[in-house]
């Protein structure tokens, strides 16, 4: 009862302080200046982006509730589910299956070739390209793909970079040449590659159990980032390197590397590392499935205990309450003060597997549905 009163008082105080408790801060597509201005609007409780979540499940057209990945392509939304690749267009879902040529029903990862509009889908049975309605599939048997379990895919120029259960690889679309990256030609120790983020300058692989692999596109050399303390059970060297070897996702934006692991997350600016743990950040769980940087300072985190946003100083968490299952949004400021913001919607599930941005909106793939976070001004 006391706790409820506290929450209620807190909500009132937030409301009183800001007039409108909803944030004026940046959602994914808003500019940094706008975000900073909004941040300064409040001296006590930071104003963080707020969303009204609309959730899609099999009840309203999604082929499966287990959604591994999501991709925004303008007005079109692609969802990689456990039972096909779904396309949301003009208010309707259309599903592509193996009958249409998809490599496998389980679509783990998605990437958009922004120049051509082609969508690349990494599945449990190979890599598929969806182009103008035609699906071409690459497998370890019919192509140079290193392994059929494709955890990650990223398109950069004419190259498609792929993260698989047996190393990374690259398909040169001009020549058709496959280049494989594994323990024989890179510093990789394990070959279970969970994620990839490719840009014209650097390519990063999240290697499960082997940290982060970096490829310098100009120098054509590999480098490797590992947990400096080598400890699996604790963090000895905080902010001195990658937080853990068990990496799951990478995102390279504005020359900043964001790395997710099952034991906390990291940000690397090329010189300094910063680690994020639940105990000293607003991260709702150290078990992070996916990370997606907005820019050099801001990033979104998909964990097993909700969706989180970090604006460089403050944190916000969006989820069904772990205790009640009711929609919940919490904000943590730089001093560690946590405030609740009254919300009526939340992502479909706390187990978040995929994130993408649509202007100011956010799309979230979860274990129990796909969520569209509509930014509330």
């Amino acid at each position: 009862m006391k706790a409820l009163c506290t929450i209620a008082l807190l909500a009132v105080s937030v409301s009183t302080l800001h007039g409108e408790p909803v944030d004026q801060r940046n959602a994914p597509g808003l500019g940094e200046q706008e975000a900073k201005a909004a941040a300064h609007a409040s001296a006590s409780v930071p104003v963080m982006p707020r969303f009204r979540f609309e959730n899609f499940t099999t009840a309203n057209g999604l082929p499966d509730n287990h959604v591994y990945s999501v991709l925004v392509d303008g007005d079109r939304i692609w969802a990689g589910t456990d039972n096909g690749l779904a396309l949301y267009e003009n208010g309707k879902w259309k599903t592509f299956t193996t009958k249409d040529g998809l490599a496998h029903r389980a679509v783990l990862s998605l990437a958009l070739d922004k120049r051509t509009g082609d969508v690349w889908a990494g599945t449990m049975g190979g890599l598929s390209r969806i182009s103008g309605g035609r699906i071409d599939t690459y497998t370890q048997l019919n192509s140079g793909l290193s392994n059929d379990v494709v955890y990650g895919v990223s398109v950069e120029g004419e190259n498609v970079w792929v993260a698989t259960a047996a190393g990374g690889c690259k398909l040169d679309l001009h020549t058709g040449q496959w280049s494989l990256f594994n323990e024989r030609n890179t510093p990789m120790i394990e070959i279970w590659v969970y994620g990839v983020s490719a840009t014209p300058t650097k390519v990063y692989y999240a290697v499960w159990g082997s940290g982060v692999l970096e490829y310098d596109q100009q120098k054509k050399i590999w480098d490797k980032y590992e947990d400096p303390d080598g400890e699996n059970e604790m963090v000895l060297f905080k902010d001195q390197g990658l937080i853990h070897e068990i990496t799951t996702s990478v995102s390279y934006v504005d020359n900043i590397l964001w790395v997710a692991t099952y034991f906390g997350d990291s940000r690397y600016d090329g010189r300094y590392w910063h680690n994020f743990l639940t105990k000293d950040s607003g991260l709702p769980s150290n078990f992070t499935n996916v990370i997606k940087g907005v820019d050099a300072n801001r990033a979104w985190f998909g964990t097993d205990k909700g969706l989180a946003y970090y604006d460089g100083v403050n944190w916000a968490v969006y989820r069904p309450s772990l205790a009640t299952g009711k929609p919940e949004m919490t904000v943590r400021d730089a001093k560690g003060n946590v405030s609740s913001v009254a919300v009526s919607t939340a992502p479909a599930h706390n187990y978040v597997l995929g994130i993408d941005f649509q202007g100011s909106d956010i799309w979230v793939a979860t274990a129990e549905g796909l969520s569209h976070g509509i930014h509330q001004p």
Partner: protein
Amino acid sequence: MKHCVHIGMRGRAIGAVVLMCLFVLGICLWSGRSARASAAKGRTGEHLEYASPVEVLFSPDAARLYVLCQQSGQVRVLDAKNYEPIKNIDVGRVPRGFSLSPKGDRLFVANSWDDTISVIDTKTLEMTATWSVGAEPSNVVEDRAGKHLFVANRISNDVSVLDAQTGAEEKRLAAGRGASYITQSPDGTRLYVTHVYPNATQHRTAPKSEITVIDAARAVVTDRIVLPYVAHGFHIAFSADGRLGVAAGMHPKNLVPLAHLEHGGAFADTLTLFGADVGKPVEVPLDELERYAARPFGVAITPDKSRIFVTCGGSEAVVVIDVQRLLRYVRTHPGPHAQDLSASGNYVVTRIAVGHDPRGVAFTHDGTKLLVANRLEDTISVIDTKTDQVASTIPLAGPKKLSVLRHGEQTFYTARYSFQGQIGCASCHIDSTFDGLQWDLEPDGFGRDIVDNRPIEDVKDTEPYKWNGGNPNLPTECGPRTEKYFWRAENYDDLTLTDLVVYIRSLPPRPNRWRLPGRELTAAQERGRALFERAVDKFGNPIPETNRCVYCHSGVKGTDQKSFDVGTKKVTDNTGLLDTPQLTNIAITAPYLHDGSAATLEQIWTVFNPQDKHGRTNDLTKDELNDLIEYLRTR
């Protein structure tokens, strides 16, 4: 020891002399026949440079006629009033397509063997730039806004998108296999791309093609119009109102034994209609009972939308179609139509005989004349569109003699030697290459020995022929067997067959796109070559000589010209002993193996080599297999 060596050398020398004598005797016998025939037909043996016009178009002011000449590598500029030559402009090797900019101030030429676009200033008639594109560019179109240039690349199976001002390639769009011809919709908003080889399908299922639809403003693929059963697509034309699109194509009947030519059992030569006038795409045949329209290629619709003209290369004719009757027919007959030989009688008005291998077409501005490029005759037929008669024939400057090679090429491309003029060599060997299809030929028994169509470029000196090595030489391969089992007619005289063989033996390989300039190898290719030539496997075990890649695939062309059983025999095959195929340009000739069951090079070893009989490969890692394939692509 020296003595033995001496005797050995002398023995070899004597043997060489005997062989030489036999060779000279053979040449004498052979050339004697040729000489007699040459005299009879006034042929020459020298290599003559013909023009070989493939496309024609008029300048916007109707003052000039541009003729794209494939063999001479030129754009020939003629006065459009009297067709007198104005200038010949040299472009790249084997130009295949060209178009004018919307303003008409630039002429773009796709040089298929150079992988470039030539840019010609139409005021000065000088070439002003050469731009690099994808592999084997075959057609080029600039969008109405003058922002982008779109180039269909036959080997890289895509469309290059270039900055129309600088020529910088911005991206490539995935198109159909063998992307070759681009047509702009009348309103300029869409580009429609056809391709000459079928898209990949499951083994022994019907071929499938597409018309790739590109949004010109966004330069992205927005749709793919599926063409079931069509294996080879050529030109498209639109009615002026944009409501009717017409695509020329070939519909092979390769899933049934090739034994019923008398029932039209080889190909349907068709048009696919699409657009608002017909709703869903409709495929209609051009063939008539006892009169076929072999290898439809160029298409044009009169400005008033009354007639469609279609060039048919194998038939050396232009088929004329009444549009209203055609639309009425497809609206009242649900189809499918493609194999109905009685259908075309409802809409084909007539056919007009033109020259050898007619290709591209263009209307005069008033639509009263249609010009047809006769590729293997170096002429332009001018058809009066009111009378459907050839009003005149424009000869292009060049040799007037018919060389052996030229006659052989004409023989290759015509369908006149087959029963009812249904098919010719070029029906399956598209532009003297291959067709990406598998056929069930009669001599081996129905349903037996399904064979993939092998490419023929650089085929000289790779005998024996056929997958089972049953034909010891090209005259046997192309002569009686072909006449009996393909043409169902014995029409070749000795001279014609000889000329055909000379032409086929003359076919050079296309430039290999995977080989670096100077023929050096990349690191991956070099590693692959080492694997190709290795004698010891990764466990240190010697690989038997006959199980090394380089043993069977030896020599410059990658064949020892012998037969081996590499463990790929299927239950429907009569033998597992197969002729070692040459490796020339193997990167582009999928599918693979004798029956085309391997969709990719990788599948040869990941799927079809479980016992290591097709070379020792199962010890290789995936990246090593990739290296081996990278090397093979350089062959």
